[in-house]
């Protein structure tokens, strides 16, 4: 299977190099996938226009075939109840961050069909629900992550901003970790980057995520100061020492909890 995956990756890379201008009509923040690889999909990933006339990308992608390292693939604000997208509506994604900072909103299905959405907005993002309601209406089956760049102490970091479906705010964040190897993650190492402070280890309990090879844990950040935290999920030092790739979490408390 690995060999097949490698050969397919080689084929894809050849296709990518052979089709340099294939995805030129999409903004830079969108997935750099050649149009040739989207052929045959019922609603291929493509450039779209949001109600506020901003450009974003939405549609279906092929199933991922690479073997990524153990990493956090989704950071959402914790929301109770079922959140379903219904057609012919305007949906909104919100987050709590500096309102002038543009955030790259990235949605990916956990399971087939592989719905994908990429947008770059400040404050919140609104879009029509026709596609998402058709292909992946359940918010729980979607990996959502907000990313923006920030310069802290002369270094550039990619900050992760927890996203929320709809209005409101919660300071409990739901993290989803994807790993191909079985893990026994039981600790979250939270290292304050801004403001700098002593690191802290928080015991966490992971439950099965929305698809196989995913695990989910929720961490309350209510008592944490606004700032940037380096968050790593890991096994205890008594164990082998597997960890996720660290993320730099942008935590900011907003009203309306």
């Amino acid at each position, binding site marked *: 299977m*690995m060999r097949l995956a*490698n050969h397919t*990756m*080689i084929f894809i*890379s050849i296709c990518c190099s052979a089709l340099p201008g294939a995805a030129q009509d999409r903004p830079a923040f969108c997935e750099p996938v050649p149009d040739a690889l989207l052929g045959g999909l019922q609603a291929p990933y493509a450039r779209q226009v949001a109600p506020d006339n901003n450009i974003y990308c939405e549609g279906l992608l092929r199933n991922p075939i690479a*073997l990524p*390292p153990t990493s956090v693939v989704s950071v959402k604000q914790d929301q109770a109840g079922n959140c379903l997208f219904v057609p012919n509506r305007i949906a909104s994604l919100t987050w709590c961050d500096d309102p002038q900072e543009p955030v790259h909103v990235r949605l990916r299905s956990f399971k087939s069909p592989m719905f994908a959405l990429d947008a770059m907005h400040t404050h919140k993002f609104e879009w029509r629900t026709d596609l998402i309601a058709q292909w992946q209406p359940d918010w729980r089956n979607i990996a959502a992550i907000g990313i923006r760049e920030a310069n802290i*102490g002369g*270094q550039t970091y990619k900050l992760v901003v927890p996203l929320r479906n709809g209005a409101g705010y919660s300071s409990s964040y739901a993290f989803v970790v994807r790993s191909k*190897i079985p893990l026994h993650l039981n*600790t979250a*190492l939270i*290292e304050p*980057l801004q403001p700098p402070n*002593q*690191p*802290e*280890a928080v015991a966490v309990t992971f439950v099965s995520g929305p698809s196989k090879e995913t695990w989910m844990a929720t961490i309350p950040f209510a008592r944490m100061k606004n700032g940037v935290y*380096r968050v*790593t999920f*890991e*096994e*205890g*030092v*008594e164990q*082998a*020492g*597997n*960890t*996720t*790739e*660290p993320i730099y979490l942008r935590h900011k408390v907003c009203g309306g909890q």
Partner: protein
Amino acid sequence: MSITKPAKSDPERTPPELLSEEMARKLTDLAAALRKGVAPSVEDLETIERLSKLKTLFSAHDNGRRKKIEIGFLCATALLLIGLAFVRMPSTAVDLDVRATKVRLALTNQRSASLIPGELGEILALKQARVSGADEVDPPTVGESGSFELNQFVPSSGTTTHGGSEDMAVRLQEISIPSDSPLTIAVGVAYAADSRGLVFEASGSKPSTARFGEVIPLGKEVHNEKTVRYAISPVRAGGKNLSLELFPANSERQLTVFRDMHVSEVCFEDAGHSTILGGLAFIKSRGEASVPLQPSDRLTIRSASPMLVRKLTLTKGELKATLSAPRATTIQVGEDSPRNLMPTLFEWIRFRWPNQLYATLSALVALWLATRRWWESSK
């Protein structure tokens, strides 16, 4: 006296044959005359004597021609044997079992993007890791100059731990290499005051990345006693010329660096010097069992198809490489005037068909002797 004309003229028959026949006929006539009581005439005797002299003259001429043929045949045979003895095979299968202090490998494009020194994805526990040549370090504060050192955490006395079963070693979680661009990896022995480890240098047009986990204490004062929890802080270093010095926590244990990795080039040299400590080269198409490699031997091996590093291990401060080259085009060992170990055609034939070779040579010698004998008898 004139020579009587043969009964049947045959242009294809040689003069000695014609003379032999004539002489035989004369002798038969003479024998018949003797049986009848007729004494042989002087003319008959002279005729037979002349025929005999002529036959001797023609035979001497024929012997010269035969010798030329024989010499030609021997020369052709000698040339064939010299060719077989000197012309080397275009390629051969080679197995190497080498102990060295450093080996440089050029990886083929058919490779995995992930390397983990250790067995089957096992995370490697290190006493110390030294990193240099990193273009990017996360967190940046760990190594702003691109060089840093991670050490196994040593708890200070008086600290109370949770259970006491913590492993304080630095974890090497993964080394990621670019899978779609040329990459050279040098693996050598790293030296420290009290231990030996592994040097791992990756050079390519795209960056390689190493992921470590460093144990850090999370202290807390409880009832005037310091209770410490530990966590693993990830450190990632990436660079196009990334150099790692890894000192395993358990230096007695064998460390497998690679297993079943395809490479296009192998070099056992460092700064112009051979890094070989010893070993054996098995050349499949040669008769010899193996060729021993001496310390400082320069070993040159090139292959028309990718070579397979079956395993590369660090054992007690020595690197051991087991390598197979199914189509090696060059294999040389030695110092100033290296010895070419590529098998000759003769060695190859002797290796592939030893019984048939000796049987054929014996048959050829027997055939030649029989031919000579037949030739001589026919005169």
